[in-house]
């Protein structure tokens, strides 16, 4: 493939909560589990933040870094499983907010926690097919707003966004190949009208990572075999599903990756589970510092959706285009901690009636 990432950007909410703040209120797990799962902090949304605003912020950064006229963008794919609208399209709002032309091809893509990687693959396919010179892919989620108060998922459910401009010219990371593995698994879901996501496999299914290896391993293995690459020696970065810190160890071990290389791309302890952006924000962190000719393996997993595996190789174009601001490390460290009461308020965990006549929040 000639196409790949031309530029990229991320958006991570500035507000965070320490998992012990949540635990002080609910005491619904043994706190030992935090170290084992690598839960330290997760993002908290402000009232004006959602998957759309985070996705647009990440895309603004990606477009600014590209230096490419926005009129050249011919497609937009917005991947999220926490779309702020039940029916309305998010991609069109993003399109307008970003100042993109109205005749571009765009759609929302909802595919669990792998919506982001699927958006990237869609963008590459669109460009490879010659339908556009450039396509924008966004992966964004706000899981924190969509899990019920008092469930254990509150400790890890977080938010974040990744966006990348895909093209054939000025590529900094070429997509060498990709693969998918999907099957129906009745895990995370919201049926029509549900306010909150439910776990199909319950807490036991969650901690046992029900479905993870059954999807991530065949997707990864097929791609490695197709490309003829050795997991133990051919990769400089390995980004694996990381909703918990246990997941990358399980997947990495099963696929034959070096565990230390895997752990260098695990951000669970810093930010929690970013859903569709979960496997892409660590990719951005790798690109922030990568050198020419380095190879990154990326694998996403969406509960009830399956896995995408992607292999990127950086190019010589990276040298002149390495970003100096807005790096992932900076976004992770730029934070304000809040308590559980404020997190619940900001994330609309206790909704007021829509007709409430009051100015008081």
């Amino acid at each position, binding site marked *: 493939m000639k196409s790949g990432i031309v530029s990229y950007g991320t958006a991570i909410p500035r507000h965070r909560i320490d998992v012990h703040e949540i635990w002080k209120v609910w005491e619904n797990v043994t706190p030992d589990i*935090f*170290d084992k799962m*690598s*839960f*330290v902090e997760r993002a908290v949304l402000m009232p004006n933040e959602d998957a759309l605003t985070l996705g647009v912020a990440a895309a603004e950064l990606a477009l600014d870094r590209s230096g490419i006229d926005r009129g050249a963008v011919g497609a937009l794919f917005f991947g999220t499983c926490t779309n702020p609208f039940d029916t309305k399209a998010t991609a069109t709002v993003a399109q307008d907010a970003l100042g993109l032309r109205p005749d571009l091809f765009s759609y929302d893509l909802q595919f669990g926690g792998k919506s982001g990687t699927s958006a990237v693959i869609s963008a590459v396919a669109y460009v490879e097919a010659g339908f556009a010179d450039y396509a924008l892919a966004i992966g964004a989620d706000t899981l924190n707003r969509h899990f019920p108060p008092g469930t254990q998922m509150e400790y890890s459910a977080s938010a974040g966004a990744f966006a990348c401009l895909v093209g054939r010219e000025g590529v900094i990371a070429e997509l060498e190949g990709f693969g998918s593995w999907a099957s129906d698994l009745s895990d995370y879901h919201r049926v029509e009208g549900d306010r909150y996501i439910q776990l199909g496999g319950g807490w036991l299914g969650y901690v046992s990572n029900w479905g993870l290896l059954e999807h991530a391993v065949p997707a990864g293995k097929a791609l490695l075999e197709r490309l003829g690459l050795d997991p133990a020696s051919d990769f400089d970065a390995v980004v694996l599903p990381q909703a918990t810190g246990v997941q990358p160890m399980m997947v990495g071990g099963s696929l034959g990756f070096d565990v230390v290389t895997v752990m260098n791309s*695990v951000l669970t302890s810093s930010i929690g589970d970013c859903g569709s952006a979960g496997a892409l924000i660590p990719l951005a*962190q790798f690109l922030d*510092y990568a050198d020419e000719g380095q190879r990154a393996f990326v694998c996403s997993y969406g509960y009830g959706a399956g896995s995408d595996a992607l292999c990127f190789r950086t190019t010589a174009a990276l040298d002149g285009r390495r970003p100096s601001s807005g790096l992932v490390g900076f976004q*992770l*460290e730029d934070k304000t901690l809040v308590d559980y009461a404020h997190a619940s308020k900001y994330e609309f965990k206790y909704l007021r009636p829509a007709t409430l006549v009051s100015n008081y929040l």
Partner: protein
Amino acid sequence: MATVKETIATLPSLFNPKKAKGYTRIIQLDISGEGGGQWYLDVKNQELRVVEGKAEKPRFVMTVSDEAFVKYFSGAEPVMSLVRSGQLKFTGPMTEGIAFSSLWIIPKK
């Protein structure tokens, strides 16, 4: 065998800044035994600062005997062997404990 203080003094030369890109952490070292004590490692902008004392809010704590600490950084015994035998313990996110070992170029013996 080197002392804890001598080993602490070698840490900047063992530190691998290439593996610390984007890595910002404070790591507490809690070393027991003769010559032991409290130090913390402040890693930021690919630079290592070794400070004597207790950090206010470290990301994780390495609790280790003086002998095991010297063995680890001199390359006399691999970290996993020290963990398995209970001579070295990481308290904090498990992923961070594993990633920590990539920050060092430990001599091979």
